[in-house]
């Protein structure tokens, strides 16, 4: 009833190919955009910005990057955190070498560095597949973290081996550094995430997206119909690493404010892989759903005893938290192995035909 698609006629090719052919989908999107752009900035506290909203956005961006590679092009990668690190360190070097440069440009440029590194480590994908490729990207992960630790030029010979973010202004607003207001940082991340998602949705629906999906589903068949495998795989690595690199730079510059090399170690790669898998491989919406489950939910669970006025030993709470999240992950994967995005798709399908199922 709410989701009735009857009567929504498509009278032109253009309307038939629209991003959201069903009107209710577009309304929902507008609703969530309004929520993100208007309601949250008006209501959220500093804690909500820094511990919930900004991390969810950044993690979903990183997961989108991985999803393009793994979900759309079918190339398994365990090097996500390493590529995020490349983005972050590149952005750090660019902003320290050219302090006058606008931060947006520095951010956009830093993505190219991670894209280049991604393509270099993506080369083995031309010869090896599946688990073997995962091991090759794992090598990238270990190598890159090692590089961040050992190559002191990367962190300007800082004694502590960490990178620190200085204060940077943009159009009169402080964007990075301790004096930046959380709302400004939130808007910055939100706009960046919106733009990248919008581009990615269009990209995955276009020529390259179809090439990637063809390669994912059966690379021999794809080659036979004339798809250049090398180009398809390497573009997937490039686009994916570009997005992941930007996510890494955003993470350090607009969220954490400082980073040490082991931040980009393998647990982060796994965390992002989990977000992508639980959210749904090969879906755009899934990245948000996965990030909410993996990143935001533990924070929210931690708050519940305080809100109810219960005093729980913090260590116990942490253990309970891990158990709840673990149980939820298992439950969701049993109920819907294709991820939360598919779960939503099933609900939506049921809603469309409700109350008269065939």
């Amino acid at each position, binding site marked *: 009833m709410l989701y009735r698609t009857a009567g929504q006629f498509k009278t032109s090719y253009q309307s038939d190919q629209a991003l959201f052919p069903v009107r209710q989908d577009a309304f929902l999107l507008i609703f969530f955009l309004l929520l993100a752009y208007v309601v949250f900035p008006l209501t959220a506290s500093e804690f909500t910005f820094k511990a919930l909203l900004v991390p969810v956005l950044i993690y979903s961006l990183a997961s989108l990057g991985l999803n393009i590679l793994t979900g759309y092009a079918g190339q398994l990668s365990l090097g996500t955190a390493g590529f995020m690190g490349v983005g972050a360190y590149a952005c750090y070097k660019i902003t320290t070498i050219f302090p006058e440069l606008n931060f947006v440009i520095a951010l956009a440029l830093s993505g190219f560095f991670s894209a280049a590194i991604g393509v270099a480590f993506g080369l083995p994908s031309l010869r090896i597949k599946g688990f073997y490729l995962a091991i090759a990207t794992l090598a990238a992960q270990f190598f890159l973290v090692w590089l961040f630790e050992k190559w002191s030029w990367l962190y300007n010979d800082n004694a502590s081996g960490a990178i620190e973010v200085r204060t940077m202004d943009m159009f009169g607003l402080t964007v990075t550094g301790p004096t930046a207001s959380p709302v400004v940082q939130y808007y910055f991340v939100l706009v960046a995430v919106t733009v990248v998602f919008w581009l990615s949705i269009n990209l995955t629906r276009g020529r390259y997206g179809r090439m990637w999906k063809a390669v994912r589903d059966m690379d021999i068949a794809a080659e036979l119909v004339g798809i250049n495998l090398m180009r398809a795989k390497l573009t997937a690595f490039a686009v994916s690493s570009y997005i992941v690199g930007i996510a890494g730079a955003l993470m350090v510059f607009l969220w954490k404010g400082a980073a040490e090399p082991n931040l980009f170690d393998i647990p982060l790669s796994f965390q992002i892989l989990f977000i992508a898998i639980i959210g749904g491989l090969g879906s755009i919406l899934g990245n948000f759903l996965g990030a909410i489950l993996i990143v935001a*939910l533990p924070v*929210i669970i*931690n708050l519940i005893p305080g809100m109810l006025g219960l005093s729980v030993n913090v260590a116990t709470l942490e253990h309970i938290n891990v158990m709840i999240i673990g149980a939820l992950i298992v439950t969701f994967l049993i109920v819907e192995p294709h991820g939360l995005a598919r779960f*939503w798709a099933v609900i939506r399908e049921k809603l469309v035909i409700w109350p008269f199922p065939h």
Partner: protein
Amino acid sequence: MKMNGISKTLAAGIAGAVLLAVPLAAAEEIYVPNLSYRTGPFAATGIPLMNGQRDYIEMLNARDGGVNGVKIVYDECETGYNTNKGVECYEKTKGKAIVTQPWSTGITLQVLPRTNVDKIPILAPGYGFSPMSDGDVFAWAYNPPSSYWDAASMILNHISDGDLDKLKGQKIALLHLDHPYGKEPIPLIEAMAEKHGFTFLPIPVGLKEMQNQSAQWLQVRREKPDYVVMWGWGAMNAGAITEAVKTRFPMDKFVGVWWSGYDGDLKAVGDKGKGYRSISWNVPGDYPVLADVKKHVVDAGNSLLENADDMNTVFYQRGLVISMILVEGIKEAQEHFDTKAVTAEQLRWGLENLNIDEARLEALGMAGMTAPFATACDNHTGHGGGWMLEWDGTQFVKASEHIMPDRAAIEPLEKAKAEEYAKNNAPWPDRSALPCGN
């Protein structure tokens, strides 16, 4: 998208709740959060320290009704040594907090630039950046009673019997965690090596290799250093000590920083660890304060200690000392500003004007437990020095006279690194807004 909707509403709800919660804090309470880690890879060493911190405050609350009549609310926020959780905890507690106890170098790094904006002092006793000692640059950060560079200097002083030139031609290895914390003493030892003509050999232990250090100890055997100095934490200490025992490295040539002197790590090797030394700014023993803690907290069932015997460990007692430093800062602030519930800004002044002398320690029942020290505007560490502890097979005992660091050699380095930090984090505010002395 149902999920999505629910959690977003929840998030908005929490946002509202958090906004509301802040002004509700009662006036006659002092809120002291601790970014603890009772879970994760470093929990084994974190738990005794945090138990000590907690029990000292609970003891004051039970015995004296707080400090000068104001109850101290000690609250832990679990980070698991994870920097992401560190951000979360910092944001969660900063509304009411009068102090940040970050408990990890990574979290300190993230919070340090925020201190000038949020105006909450960082208290990092015996950890954090060594240059934090320079109060002219780091107006809001404190690492009493000794910094890592002090530790490195004290260790070198001790093994050379006070004359570093004796080390000429010797080889000193630094077995360190490959992490900002472990790298901390390198600039100082490097400078000393150059000045006094000994060879310095850093041997990093990656976070993934903490428990299996065979490669590092192979290097030790090959290089045959005269001393191995250890900057380890968590599982790395136990790994190094068992490996040293296995390779029969002479224990009297093996010296650790204060975080590498954990009873539990040495109990595992027992007698074989005899002779292992660790520098420390607290000496384990039976002090009057322990009786109070036992009576008011442990016996009252309010402690998180699993075994009352653990009160004798170095780390638990160090936790007590850490909370003592904080509470003395609160007292100084209360007296100076003539107020009960001190604010974060007042505590900053208090920590800057600490004077923990022998008489004060005596009054607190802690005489001899830690080294006396005093902080000042340009000295946020106090540099109280410490003692060498030695493992006698069953426990750590004091094995030296009071040792002092070579401040004349450290100070220029501190100044230079503090300036460098300010430059990297430009624009870093100067102290014109916080003049010394008032």
